[in-house]
Each structure stands twice: as C-alpha cells, then as structure tokens.
C-alpha cells in the first residue's frame, strides 16, 4: 500500500530533513573556519582554509577530552548500576508474596513521577553529608536513582511474564540465591536490559541540571556542563566553540547510528509503559 506513495512527498520530506540537519552542518562548517568574521558574515560559505587548529583549541583549552572521559565513565557506571540493581529489585517485586510489595511498588511509581525539581534543592545536602560533592559519584548515584524506577517497573513487568519453571529448574540444580542473582537473572531478562540501558544512557549522557548544580570541579565535569564552561571562558572564540559542539555532536550521533534499533525500541517502550 505505502509503496504507491507519490515521489513528490519523498522529495519534500528529503528537503525537510535537509533543513532539520542544516544547523548541525552549519556547526561543522563553522568549526573549520579560521575566524569569527567568516562564521557570522558569510555563514553558509565554505571556509577560506580548513582551520583544524580550532579542534586542537577545543581539546587543549576546552578540556573536551577530559569531559568526554567523564561522560563515558558516568554513563557507563550509571547504566551498569541501573541494569543490575533494577533487575534485582524488579525480580523481587515480580513475586506476589514479596512483603510490602504494594508499598514498594508505590514508592517506585512515585520516584518515576516526581520531577527533578522536587528534590534538587536538598540533594546537595545529601551529597555533602556523604562526602560525594564534586566527584563523579555526585552524578552517578543521583542519575541511578532517577533511572531506577522505570527500570524496576519494566523488569518487574517482564519477570511476571516468565514461566516459574525457569527459576525452579535453576534452583533444582542447586544454584544458590547469590549465584542466581549474579549469573542467571540478567541473561534471562535480555530484552529488557537493552531498553533500560538505552534510556539510562541517553539520560546520563545528556543530563545538565544536576551536573550544573553539583559539579564545580573542572576535573569532574561531564560534556554538557563542560561545554557551558568552555563557552563562558571563550565567549568570543566561535570557531573553537563550534569545534567543541561538533565534537560532542559527532560522538553522540555516532553512538546513535550504531545503536539505532535499540534506541528506537528503548524510547518507544519507555514512553508507552
């Protein structure tokens, strides 16, 4: 049916896609120009020469390399924690006879619905009391807490659909509780792991507000806050700022293209559930 679609529609959509991607192309173009003048006076002209030194400035003066490492660490550790803790808790809550199950479920639903504004004011005090201020853990643990509710609910819903026999077979084989949780549970939940990992990674990679409020040490900044810091220290060095922005965008988009299927599925399942 859809195969009979008019070619003009495809053409119009291709034009629209070009318009949508134009701002990013403008960033990459500008990042290769040798001066501010060229960026803003001739915004759509090709650079007079390819000024790769802008990228060197973004990495050396803008610390993009260190921000990138921090972002990767924060994202990786947050995903690991959310997947493991989420699967454990979700499995427990999938058992009808788990004590206080409705109360715990309600707490996770509340955690899912609460906007970040509800707790950001006093989160600083918590981080300080735990001595986490200005470290990567000041982001990893709150991000984990933010992503856990949906993870727990998704895992719990999935485990209720699994036949009980799966577990019973494992137990008959004499597997201990610890080994069950450590080695058997996660492979069992593979479809949900992908969804949870994608949603958690998108959040941790792009989060800005908590990072803005709780990380002031240069060495613990992630890409979003780092980029803002770079912008504030180099307000008028547009080619270098655009080089920084295109570095971040290229890394993000590369990840997106590689994991495209999982991202689409993750976003849909996260939204619909």
């Amino acid at each position: 049916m859809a195969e009979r679609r008019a070619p003009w529609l495809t053409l119009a959509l291709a034009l629209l896609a070009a318009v949508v991607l134009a701002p990013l192309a403008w960033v990459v173009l500008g990042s290769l120009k040798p001066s501010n003048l060229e960026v803003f006076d001739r915004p759509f002209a090709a650079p007079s020469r390819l000024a790769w030194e802008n990228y060197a400035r973004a990495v050396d003066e803008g610390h993009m390399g260190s921000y990138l490492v921090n972002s990767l660490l924060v994202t990786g550790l947050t995903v690991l924690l959310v997947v493991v803790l989420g699967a454990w808790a979700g499995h427990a809550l999938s058992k009808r006879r788990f004590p206080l199950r409705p109360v715990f479920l309600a707490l996770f639903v509340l955690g899912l619905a609460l906007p970040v504004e509800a707790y950001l004011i006093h989160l600083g005090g918590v981080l300080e009391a735990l001595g986490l201020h200005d470290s990567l853990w000041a982001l990893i643990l709150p991000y984990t807490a933010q992503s856990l509710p949906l993870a727990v609910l998704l895992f719990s819903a999935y485990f209720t659909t699994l036949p009980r026999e799966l577990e019973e077979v494992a137990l008959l084989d004499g597997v201990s509780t610890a080994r069950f949780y450590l080695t058997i549970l996660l492979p069992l939940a593979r479809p949900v792991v992908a969804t949870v990992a994608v949603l958690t990674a998108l959040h941790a990679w792009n989060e800005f507000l908590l990072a803005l409020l709780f990380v002031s040490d240069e060495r613990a900044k992630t890409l979003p806050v780092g980029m803002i810091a770079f912008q504030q220290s180099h307000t008028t060095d547009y080619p270098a700022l655009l080089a920084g922005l295109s570095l971040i965008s290229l890394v993000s988009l590369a990840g997106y293209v590689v994991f495209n299927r999982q991202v689409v599925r993750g976003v849909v399942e996260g939204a619909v559930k």
Partner: protein
Amino acid sequence: MTPRGRLLFFLPALVVLGVFVLVPAGQTLVGSFHRVGPDGASEYVGGLYYRYAATDPELHRAFANNVVYFLLTLPFEVGAGLLLALALEGRGRARALLRLCFFAPVALSMVVVGLVFGFLFKDGVGVFPGLLAEGRALLTISLVSGWAFAGVYMVIFLAGLSAIPREVEEAARLDGAGAWQVAWHVKLPLLRRTTGVALLLCFVGAFRAFDLFWVMLPNQEHTSVVATLLVREVLQFDDPGYGSALAVLLSGFVLGVLGLVQAVRGTRG
C-alpha cells in the same frame, strides 16, 4: 531461593532511590514550611512562602510561560511527529533513512541544541538575530524544542501505527478512501491510546522544561519558566524556603495532573 536472599538483592535499589530522591524530596516538603536564618537556625513559618508564591507576579508569569510553552510544543512536537509518522511509515530504504534523520536529535544534549541555536539567533552576530528577544523567545524556544523532539513523537506514533492491522487500511482503501481520509478517519481514531501517551509526555516535558531556557537565555530575566526561576532562587539565596515552596508547587501540579489522568483512565476501564 530464600525470601531473605530476595530481600537482600531488592534493598540496594530502594536505598539508592530513597537516599537520592525520596529523602531530599521529603526534606524539600518540610523545608517549604521553614525559614533558615543567617545563623543557620531553622524556624517554622507555616504557609508563609506559599502565601508569598500566591502573590508573586514573577512566578505567575513563569507559570503562564509554562502553559503557553505546552500549548506551542503540542503542534511543534506532537503534531509534527504525527505527520512525520504518517508520511514515513512502511518499508523502503529512503523512508528508513529519513526516519533516521528526523530522530537523530534525540542523541543530542539539550545543552548542545541550545548552544547551536543560541549562536544562530544571537543578537548582533547571529545568522538570524532577534529571535530570542522578549516577546519572541517563547515561540522560538518552542520551535527549537520541536526540532529536537518531533522525531521522538514520530517514533512513538510509528509504533502505534505498526499495531494497526493491514486489513483495516486495505478495507478502507477498497471503499474508495484516499490516503488523507484513511489517515484522518481510520488511523487517527485507532491511535487514541498512543495520542494520549504523547500528550502526557508533552505535558510533563513542558512543565519540567529547563535546559533550553537556561542555555538560550543566559542572564536574562525575561521569559522565565518555573524551573529556571527555581534554580535562580537556589543559586542566589541562602534561604531554601521559597525555592522549596516553588518545588512543592510545581511537583504537586505535575503529580496532580498525572494522578487525575490515571484516575480518569481507570474509570473508563
């Protein structure tokens, strides 16, 4: 598997949620009824900050901005996403590539998006200056938000469309309905649940909005939303009381609407 073992593996998630979300949320609720003096002593002040909020013109303006932002992002995010989904559903290489393009902004941080468009719209040097002036900024930011999120709604609607059986569309076509008629009279009614989800997401997104406003309008007092007002309050003043009250009001509003929708849905079965 012992029940005790199960509890042991359940607890870490609960502890993390409790320590980093539920406890500070509770403190915020309590803190909104207390004033912290310069000496650090806390004193109960009842509904003082809430009475202040009720008469704070800045808060009312910010809340109104949130409402307008929601109404503007509806067509730019949800509406555009629906149209893209209707146009791009189905097989074909070209269509898959276009879907990839429209969904791509999902990977970008709103900080990156905000800075890129902030540069483009910058007064004086930008390519399209003046778009972030007072009176225009809200519309501009809504459009940028549409640029970033229309693809997300497209993907959500595509999932909804793929659940509609082919026979339904074919039957309508045999009856002589054109593509638009099928979309409007057949597909849209069948997408009711998906549309509900999309509206809810858009609503929550509009009232939690922060990043784009903070990044695109730095050091500007105009066009605040509740979240930027709240963060400015936190960064500027030592007394967290009024900020806490704002946080409770905003959270209460979002939770209230979510609860209401849930209740209505429940009664409809």
